[in-house]
């Protein structure tokens, strides 16, 4: 059936309206959520580059060739699963083309008080969690794709940890694309960590073919909860990857996030953090390596609403070939949020004659007793360092690779788990080998 719409629809939004029909058998409350979200998206359409939030992302290719969601499914292939994922992962949830794959997933038993499963399963089992996931970002004006996601999501993962549970084994999520269908995959996810609880999340995004992945993750950290997330984005050459997480931090909660962005034609990694509890810590780290025609955006918004919050942001970027890399970060300190200590650093290497780097580290401060700073740098490789290596007989090409690797490596060092870190570095090395300068 064709959806009957009674709200204004922007032209570029039209292909997504008919396909965003509700799934048969879903409860009414969810159908209503979806409908409201669809109306928001239809009215807003694609974000304009004239607006600040999407200034550095070119979405014309997607506008010209829309990728509406589809109900057909690609086959689940077990091949390469262990090279893609983390070997021997005890808690692995696999999503293929935006849908939970029970065959590929390995869900060992978890301690009492932990609920972990697909979003679709949670609709029946834990509607409260799904509702929390769907409501994330619904009030944000400049997030039309989050609205589209809320209207169209097919599946995702939901993790709920009761207070006082420390999970030692990391939770792993693999987001795969089979290459069988050319479509958009909208996934909606939630990780809720109870007071004094602790968890690590490892997520990998990869696939083949031309597709658009639109991933929204809600993170809810209660008082003194800790969540450590490591993301690896290695999407297919022709793929679009737009991912956003929306985090709310309770008192003395600790959120650390690291993202290594290597693959995908268009990649946007966005973090929205509401530091609402006193003394919360937010660490946002990451690196991108963009080459050929890739465009990679990192966007962060940290809103300090409480006193004594702390934020650390370090992002490193490399743009080679004809690639376009951009960092847009904003730290806001609200009135009364005294004693906030925030620092943001954006360092970039521009090594292609036709490559481009944009960076916009922004501070918005409404309280006086704060320590806030930011730094940004864009430049080529350090001539002195290069000379040093050349003088030792290392060929120029190799010397450059060494320096680029060292540049990004510094960012990866933030990952504490040694095995995981080595894995990320191996992926980085593989990517460097095909770097177009």
């Amino acid at each position, binding site marked *: 059936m064709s959806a009957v719409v009674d709200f204004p629809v922007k032209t570029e939004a039209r292909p997504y309206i008919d396909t965003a029909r509700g799934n048969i058998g879903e409860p009414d409350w969810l159908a209503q959520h979806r409908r409201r979200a669809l109306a928001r998206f239809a009215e807003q359409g694609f974000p304009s580059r004239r607006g600040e939030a999407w200034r550095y992302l070119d979405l014309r290719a997607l506008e010209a060739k829309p990728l509406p969601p589809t109900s057909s499914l690609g086959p689940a292939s077990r091949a390469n699963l262990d090279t893609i994922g983390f070997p021997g992962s005890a808690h692995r949830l696999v999503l293929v083309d935006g849908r939970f794959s029970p065959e590929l997933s390995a869900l060992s038993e978890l301690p009492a008080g932990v609920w972990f499963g697909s979003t679709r399963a949670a609709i029946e089992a834990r509607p409260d969690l799904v509702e929390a996931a769907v409501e994330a970002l619904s009030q944000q004006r400049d997030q039309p794709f989050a609205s589209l996601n809320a209207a169209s999501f097919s599946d995702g993962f939901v993790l709920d940890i009761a207070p006082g549970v420390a999970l030692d084994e990391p939770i792993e999520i693999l987001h795969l694309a089979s290459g069988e269908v050319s479509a958009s995959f909208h996934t909606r996810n939630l990780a809720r960590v109870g007071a004094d609880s602790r968890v690590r999340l490892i997520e990998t995004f990869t696939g083949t073919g031309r597709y658009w992945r639109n991933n929204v993750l809600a993170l809810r950290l209660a008082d003194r909860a800790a969540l450590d997330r490591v993301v690896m984005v290695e999407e297919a050459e022709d793929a679009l990857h737009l991912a956003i997480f929306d985090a709310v931090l309770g008192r003395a909660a600790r959120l650390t996030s690291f993202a290594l962005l290597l693959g995908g034609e268009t990649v946007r990694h966005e973090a929205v953090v509401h530091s609402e509890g006193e003394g919360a810590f937010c660490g946002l780290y990451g690196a991108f390596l963009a080459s050929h025609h890739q465009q990679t955006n990192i966007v962060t918004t940290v809103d300090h609403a409480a006193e004594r919050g702390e934020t650390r942001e370090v992002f490193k970027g490399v743009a080679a070939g004809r690639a376009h890399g951009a960092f847009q970060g904003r730290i806001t300190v609200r009135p009364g949020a005294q004693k906030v200590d925030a620092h943001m650093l954006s360092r970039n290497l521009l090594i292609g004659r036709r490559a481009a780097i944009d960076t916009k580290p922004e501070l918005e401060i409404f309280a006086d007793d704060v320590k806030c*700073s930011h730094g940004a740098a864009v430049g080529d490789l350090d001539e002195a360092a290069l000379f040093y290596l050349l003088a030792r007989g290392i060929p120029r090409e190799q010397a450059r690779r060494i320096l680029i690797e060292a540049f990004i490596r510094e960012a990866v060092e933030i990952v504490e788990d040694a095995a995981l870190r080595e894995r990320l570095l191996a992926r980085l090395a593989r990517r460097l080998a095909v770097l177009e300068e």
Partner: protein
Amino acid sequence: MAASIDTLDTVRALSQEGYKYGFVTDIEADEAPPGLSEETIRFISVKKEEPEWLLEWRLAAFRAWQKMTPPNWAKLNLTPIDYQAASYYSAPKRNTGPRSLEEVDPELLRTYEKLGIPLREREALAGVAVDAVFDSISVATTFKEQLAELGIIFCSFGEAVREHPDLVRKYLGTVVPQNDNFFAALNSAVFSDGSFAYVPPGVRCPMELSTYFRINAAKTGQFERTLLIADKGAYVSYLEGCTAPQRDENQLHAAVVELIAHDDAQIKYSTVQNWYPGDAEGKGGIYNFVTKRGACRGDRAKISWTQVETGSAITWKYPSCVLEGDHSVGEFYSVAITNNRQQADTGTKMIHIGKGTRSTIVSKGISAGRGQNTYRGLVRVQPRAVGARNHTQCDSLLIGERCGAHTVPYIEIRNPTARVEHEATTSKISDDQLFYCRQRGLSAEDAVSLIVNGFCKEVLKELPMEFAVEAQKLLAVSLEGSVG
């Protein structure tokens, strides 16, 4: 915590201090009726006895403006301006044009005296040529003859249109096109007068050129237009200073300044801006929407902007440099103070186009009371700008817990050989610093003054002597004793 209490006291004291320059000169004005239409523009053009081409130029700007909407991206909170309620032309009644100071209306001279700009004294002592702009028409130009001997043209814009139409026509709108932005288009359509200077090749202008702006007649917008050209190897330093009488109604000011520097030329443009900022509740005060841009057209040209912004209710101003010539240099030094309910959204744009171009940005923002201070800057390196360099430093100082300091830098790099660095910090005057100073016998007031002056030193040292003194006085007036 005594310090913060002192701070509050100081701010309070400051806000209660009346505006020293708040008075109204009672002079009959020859005014256009309120409203803006093609008719208004024709009226202005006729009043100013302008050539046909300039009228056409104004009308093209007006037509562009009609299709534009006011920019809303700045971090400014203002009530929408009714452009039809303002009057777009006002001239002092005696429009025969005084030839010397003796002919100038004594009422005007007294006004300037109240402002501390005794023309005669300056003429004699300071060696500064003052092109005094009262409302919209120039009333006195001094030192013109001395300048003329060197071939330097320095006159009102209107006079330049009459006497040097070719120069004006050649350069007008080449840096800031008529349709550049909403306020520039408005200015282009209705600009009343302003200053024009041309320094011929190889000439070093021996004195600082200077203009004082005033806004006087009620409901009269002020639309100045400044055009400054430094030909090959020339040097000129230009001073601009402003104060305005106290008004309860918001007054709009939308100026345009265009600078052009040819090969090896240098232009130094300094501004001390002290317009009426409105009262403690933010009532009244000048709305200042200015488009200032300089083009380094030639190789090794240099344009340097220095500004000390203490006035205006709203400041929207981004003095920029377009570095077209190879190895050209752009500089921007700024101190912006916002107090009470003042809002400033200011910064610069450095557009690197030529090879080996360099730019430096130093911005110091001081927020007190409920002031909101935003630095907004763009550094763009175009693909051809091999070896471009930029260093940006923007620091914010917060005084009191209800003010805001914001930094919005845009860095857009299209050439791999570029080296661009940006640093920004935000802090307050620490209790430790104050305690240290007071322990050594300084009053709270002096301590703050000392710290603020130190904070701004990098910028103040760029000002010409004549202005440095005035600027320091202004800082002191704006914040003295304020930050116990």
